[in-house]
């Protein structure tokens, strides 16, 4: 189960080196959320895909394109990118409320979105004085 969740997460996030411990936490948060039934269906569909053969295109066609599954796809990405759960995603159309549910501080500081935009998690720069004067060291290529 966790292997499928991690493999699916790699496709959805575009990040290869995902932390499996975080993955377990995110899967558990989803499993106890209103997204759980759709998560099961997504994982079942993902399990049936032919791995290695343009997996991104298959995930798009068989999962992302399905309207009733897309909010849960978005929710999985939101967790990895920002560590948040947004129940309003299941509304039609999804409401971009500011009220997100966070998990632990460790999850927050592990959000992938910051690295993707060449920044750092707010509160944890890991940088030296003045680094903001330059283009980011971790600027994606």
């Amino acid at each position, binding site marked *: 189960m966790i292997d499928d969740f991690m493999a699916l997460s790699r496709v959805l996030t575009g990040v290869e080196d995902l932390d499996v411990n975080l993955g377990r936490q995110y899967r558990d948060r989803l499993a106890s959320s209103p997204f759980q039934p759709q998560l099961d269906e997504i994982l079942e569909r993902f399990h049936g895909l032919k791995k290695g053969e343009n997996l991104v295109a298959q995930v798009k066609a068989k999962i992302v394109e399905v309207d009733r599954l897309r909010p849960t*796809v978005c929710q999985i990405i939101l967790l990895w990118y920002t560590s948040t759960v947004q129940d309003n*995603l299941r509304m039609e159309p999804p409401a*971009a409320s500011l009220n997100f549910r*966070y998990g632990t501080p460790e999850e927050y500081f592990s959000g992938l*979105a910051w690295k993707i935009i060449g920044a750092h998690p*707010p509160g944890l720069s890991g940088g030296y*004085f003045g680094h903001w004067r330059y283009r980011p060291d971790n600027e994606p290529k």
Partner: protein
Amino acid sequence: MSPAKNDFDVVIVGAGVAGAMVAYRLAKAGARVVMLEAGIRNPARPQIAGAYAIAPIKSPHSAYVQIEADAKAPSPDGAADYEQAFPEADRQYKSGYERRTGGSTWHWLGHTPRMLRSDFEMKSRYGGAKDFPLAMVDWPITYDDLEPWYCDAEREMGVAGSDEEWNDLFDSPRSQPFPMSMIWPSYSDMWIAEKINGKKFEGLEYRVRSTPSARNSSLYDGRPPCAGNSICVPVCPIGAKYDGYVHVKKAVDAGAALWEQCAVNGIDKDADGSVHTIRFLTYGNVPGKVSGDIVVIAANAIETPKLLLIAKLANSSGQVGCNLMDHLSKSTYGLAPEKLFPFRGPPSTSGIESFRDGPFRSNWAGFRVSLNNDGWSRKSSPQAQIIQLVTEKKLIGAELQAELFESVTRQVRLSCSVEVTPDHNNKVELSNNTDGLKIPKPKLTFSPSDYSLRGLAHATKTLRDIFRCIGATNIIDPNDADPRAFDGAGHIMGTCRMGKDPSQSVVDAHCRSHDHHNLFIVGSSVFPTVGSPNPTLTLAALALRAAQDVGKQLGIKKQRQTKP
């Protein structure tokens, strides 16, 4: 000093930056000092940062939520938390504060521009014009009177700034260099400066300057240099940014007592008009009292008048609570034509001072412009953008990353901070409702003058022009929806104005009550007018100056200024 007929030489109500600086100076000079603080002591910084990390809404107070303290000593976080006298959106007071040991500087941005020479002389310089507000007054002191104390406050707080950029700004010279070299401007600041420096708008020239900040650019006073963690509001996770707790600790180390969770609910007046005894309630609702030869009220510009109104003190002028001010703030958003990499460094590192002063102030308010490093986070969350890209564009994986990178890295926010004028009708009163200790809550009335709103209109036009100059697209200007709308700046000022005339002001030029010879009021409540700079440095300078006067009144011969 007098024989010890009172419990302490000085009782200070409020352990924020003003109260703590006064306590430190006096305790260091040998006075017996106690600080009464209604709030609690904060946990360690990593815990505060952790609380912020998981807070559903990232507001300034979100890192400090503590159920008992929020009930017993409420810390309003904005318009929704107040008793507002009127329900209309454009009549709401919008700035909040922290009632915690160390005060609201826990969550301040840390910017420390000085007031200008002209800011102290508004009536003399610009009064008489048809559109000039009648309530605008001169301060009873000049820039030159306060200048040495600005230097003192900059040393105490540890201010980083550029002498070259800031000396003699609008005829307001500096007698001493900044204690530290400037906080470096961001990549975005430098890119924008290159595009706009030297260009003019409404006859005034753009020049981007690094903003002086009480934020370390090198090791100073035992605190580390800024690492650009980007959450100065609500907390610096490493203590590089100054906060009032620095001087609370110094005061305690110098011998001052600190009594926390003591919410003051009364101040007794003696037959001779002096005040000595402060009454308070602990969180357990246990009453207590403490007396001092001199009393210093150092709460903020809402809590201070609240206490004075409860105690019916210092108000022969009828001015206590009146002239509540803030700065009007507004942001405009755009996408730069190039990637500028926001979400790194302090939230704002540079600004434009050109519009703070000039003949136009006869007709409309001056303002500062801030260049910000926080993208569009105040308008929409990063999550909202991800949701839109996934649910509408159906992007995942590398495509999603590329789109996110392309759009977010070009986000720019510009903001303005506009002078608010004093107005007798903008005020703090006592509500009929009470807090968890049955102490009346403050009730606020606030509506900016046409003079300030005209300044706001010019400021937002200026932001728009800067976006034009840099070739920005996708500009979102809240003025399009409502030109009169504004945000609070978190700069709570006025309500116990300083002045020479006891019939028109609450305290004299030394922050001493006109009505009670041994009552001092420190903090931004004493500002008669506010200009457009962030107020904390000015209130710190005034507090240090008042500490000297308190010391003189106590009979302390010499007080030492200290260097870290």
